[in-house]
């Protein structure tokens, strides 16, 4: 089986919503979360998807 899409990292400002099974980046505020997500998107060659206002995931497509 080949996984075509998978979560590379999660970025959140809400520690109570931490997903397991992937790298998690805690941020102080939304601004920091956007900066981290933009950098990770470029580094990991993935797309930053917003699931909620407090949680972004970087997904490899």
């Amino acid at each position, binding site marked *: 089986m080949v996984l075509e899409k998978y979560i590379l990292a999660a970025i959140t400002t809400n520690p109570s919503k931490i997903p397991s099974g992937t790298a998690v980046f805690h941020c102080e505020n939304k601004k920091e979360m*956007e900066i981290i*997500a*933009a950098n990770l998107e470029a580094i990991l*060659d993935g797309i*930053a*998807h*917003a699931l909620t206002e407090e949680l972004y995931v970087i997904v490899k*497509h």
Partner: protein
Amino acid sequence: MSEYTYPILFGLAAGTLTRIYMLRTDYRQYPTYLHGKIIHVALGFIAAGLGTVAIPSIMEEDFTAITFLTLAASQFREVRNMERNTLTELDSYEMVPRGKTYIEGVAIAFESRNYLVIFTSLLSTLGYLLFNIWGGLAAAVLSILISTKLMSGGRLKDIVDVEFVEPRFDGAGLYVDNIYIMNIGLPNRQEEVLRYGMGFILKPKNFNARSTIANLGQRQAILHDVSTALGVYRDSGTPALVPLAKRDLDDGRVGVFVLPQEKDINKALKVIEAVPTLENAIRMPTERQTNGKGS
């Protein structure tokens, strides 16, 4: 020189010229100048040779020579494989790939054009031998006209109405009309997408067209052609800037989202309308006899 020398040379010339005529380099930049063309002109010359000698062979009652045509068939199948392999290899380096369906269509076209060359040279030689050089010329012109007709397939404008729609965001969701395209989380990226992005709605004209444009290969061909003609605003490592085409499940419309470097709506509409309808994508569900035998 025998009585067949001039008819054979005439058929050979007619067939080779037909192949050169059909080998026009267009917006797809294929075949590339110059080596790619030499391969196909050489193969066209061989095809013309096979077609042209068939008639003198029949007239001399040398029927075994016709078996060479079967050899040609397997030889030209190899042409199809060669084109498929080359284009598949190159596709991984494209900003917006052609897709396998498009590649298969191109490969089939290359094979079939050699058969059209055989047909042209065969008829030209026959015309020359039955009548005279004018008869041969008339047969050659007629064959080239038939070949032109056979090699031109349908266009997307025949099966869909294309309409420009400005893309928009609803939260992180990117939409073209009411068709969801993708989720883009970063506000900066969203601004970039709105600045450079263009949306189009393909409205199928009938039920058959609905199935045809649902084909993923056909949709990829649209994205590739628009990106080739208008450029593409993306680089490697920017998957958020990839052009996409998504389907409305309710009515079969397709929303096309592209990021061209040249944001010209009229030009983009013309490019989309001129996208070839891929042979392998065409579906005709209405042709099925639901009440007939075997349904």
